[in-house]
């Protein structure tokens, strides 16, 4: 019996099972026509391979390494999911700063709250706490994701234990949908504004706020930092034993566009696509989060520690921290491959972050006005983003 074309082709690739291989070899020895067939398959396969090799990437076209790409993936998934990027930025699984997890853990209200600083006018109402951070402006600091600590796992008992013992966490309000801007506004106790430059009715919802307090155990935090390769970062001594409080008010979300739910599971039709919505635009607004820190803490020092944790050198952190008013500025770490610029929006300065500045792209625009922080995310061109943001009523 002659060998089949498939067997001969697999023979050429060395992909036959042992028994098949023996059978085909024996047959080829005895059958000139199959031998000829095998040779012509072999020749054609070689030719096709040679032609296809024109498509192989040359060294200049080499792709990003898996390590660099995993960072891109974090950015990608955060924008794809089209949950407000503002939140996603720091979400535990898909946030841009996923890699920063260990860092954020430590930061929980300590280092991160680098931004936390005292604001003179509100000192009077801050009670025992003399430092109160409130967002009045938004800035960005570029960081190189590849500089982040690699050999550090958040799962380590030290951090979990630290959080379990020292972090109190309480949700305020509950997640629910709202029928109108007025309803959402009364749930969240803020005046809700919506863009008039977008067509269609938004899906409005509110999400619970959070109250946290964190008792600082400085030696343990320093030792965790040290394990993460940041042994040279010194947090202010005054922090030890202090309680840092943070409050995140309820968030109002307005989503424009149809969000498709991911339906196809792995193994089913992969072309069915995941739940992403290239046309969705999302506006998030909330009263400024606040952070209270105890009296006498050098907040600029915490600010510097925070910058170091984003991969900055000590010298860079030093000089950058001097350009920031830490008491009022929300400093957002932006991966260095994304474009960022300060733009004039809604009568104030905002921070515009674009994945690609040259054409329609995923964007995030954050600004603070009259005690409210706004974040607009979606997909579009730079002028379109500003047009939407400036149409808030």
């Amino acid at each position, binding site marked *: 019996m002659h060998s089949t074309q*498939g067997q001969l082709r697999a023979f050429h690739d060395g992909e036959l099972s042992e028994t098949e291989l023996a059978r085909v070899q024996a047959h080829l020895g005895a059958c000139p026509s199959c031998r000829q067939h095998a040779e012509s398959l072999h020749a054609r396969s070689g030719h*096709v391979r040679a032609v296809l090799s024109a498509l192989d990437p040359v060294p200049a076209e080499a792709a*990003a390494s898996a390590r660099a790409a995993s960072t891109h993936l974090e950015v990608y998934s955060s924008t794809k999911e089209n949950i407000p990027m*503002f939140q996603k930025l*720091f979400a535990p699984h898909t946030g841009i700063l996923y890699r920063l997890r260990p860092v954020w853990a430590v930061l929980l209200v300590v280092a991160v709250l680098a931004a936390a600083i005292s604001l003179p006018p509100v000192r009077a109402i801050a009670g025992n706490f003399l430092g109160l951070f409130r967002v009045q402006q938004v800035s960005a600091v570029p960081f190189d994701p590849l500089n982040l600590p690699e050999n550090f796992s958040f799962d380590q008992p030290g951090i979990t234990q630290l959080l379990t013992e020292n972090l109190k966490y309480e949700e305020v309000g509950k997640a629910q949908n709202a029928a109108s801007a007025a309803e959402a506004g009364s749930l969240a106790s803020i005046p809700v504004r919506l863009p008039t430059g977008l067509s269609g009715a938004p899906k409005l919802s509110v999400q619970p706020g959070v109250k946290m307090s964190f008792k600082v155990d400085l030696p343990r935090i320093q030792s965790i930092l040290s394990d993460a390769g940041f042994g040279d970062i010194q947090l202010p001594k005054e922090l030890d034993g202090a309680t840092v409080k943070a409050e995140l008010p309820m968030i109002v979300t307005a989503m424009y566009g149809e969000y498709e739910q991911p339906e196809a599971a792995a193994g089913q039709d992969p072309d069915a696509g995941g739940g992403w919505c290239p046309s969705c635009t999302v506006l998030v607004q909330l009263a400024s*989060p606040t952070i209270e820190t105890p009296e006498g803490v050098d907040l600029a020092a915490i600010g510097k520690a925070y910058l170091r944790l984003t991969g900055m050198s000590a010298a860079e952190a030093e000089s950058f921290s001097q350009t920031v008013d830490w008491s009022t500025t929300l400093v957002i770490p932006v991966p260095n491959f994304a474009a960022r610029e300060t733009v004039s929006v809604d009568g104030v300065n905002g921070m515009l972050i674009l994945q690609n500045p040259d054409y329609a792209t995923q964007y995030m625009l954050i600004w603070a006005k009259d005690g409210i922080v706004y974040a607009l995310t979606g997909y579009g061109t730079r002028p379109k983003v500003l047009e939407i943001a400036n149409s808030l009523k």
Partner: protein
Amino acid sequence: MTVTIGRVKPESLISTTGPDFEAIFQQHWPRVVAVLFRLTGDRDEAEDLALEVFWRLHTNLHTNLHTSLHRNPSAGEGRRGRPSPTGLPSDPGGWLYRVATRLGYNALRSRKRRGLYEQEAGARAVESAAQPAPEAQVEQRQERERVRGVLARMRPRSAQLLILRHSGLSYTELAAALSTKPGSVGTLLARAEKEFERLYRSQGR
């Protein structure tokens, strides 16, 4: 930034991405991008599509995880929220390459339509006049266009098979990617090569 920190409950800070996805990503990323580069000829586009592929895998892992946890609440216990074994597609490799080649092939076909349009509009002539490239590069680009033109005209499954094989997948991997038996791969390859060669010759200049 303070915002989401506040939203994260301590216990949920533990990664649910887990080592499984990470391992798959590390293992397959270079080859998935290479497959997509061959199909699209553009590094950025290839990487974007590859990100899409892995993002879908990631999404599916999570979807499945949640589903399996709902069906069997104890499934994820003791693993600190990492995907349970049932949360993984039975063969993530095959799934990855199936999705990658489909996305890449669709991009190739739509690019070809765009390319024809641009050609008619004379855009290409303007471009090449503005940026004189070394002759070798021009030739390489032309040859690549020709090869992709052939792939675009082939039956999708054949074209995908050729690209995957050329990217170094074994017959077992090819079978998984194309949802067929390893024993059928030889036959499919022989057919695909015949189809490719016929179209390539007929498109010769």
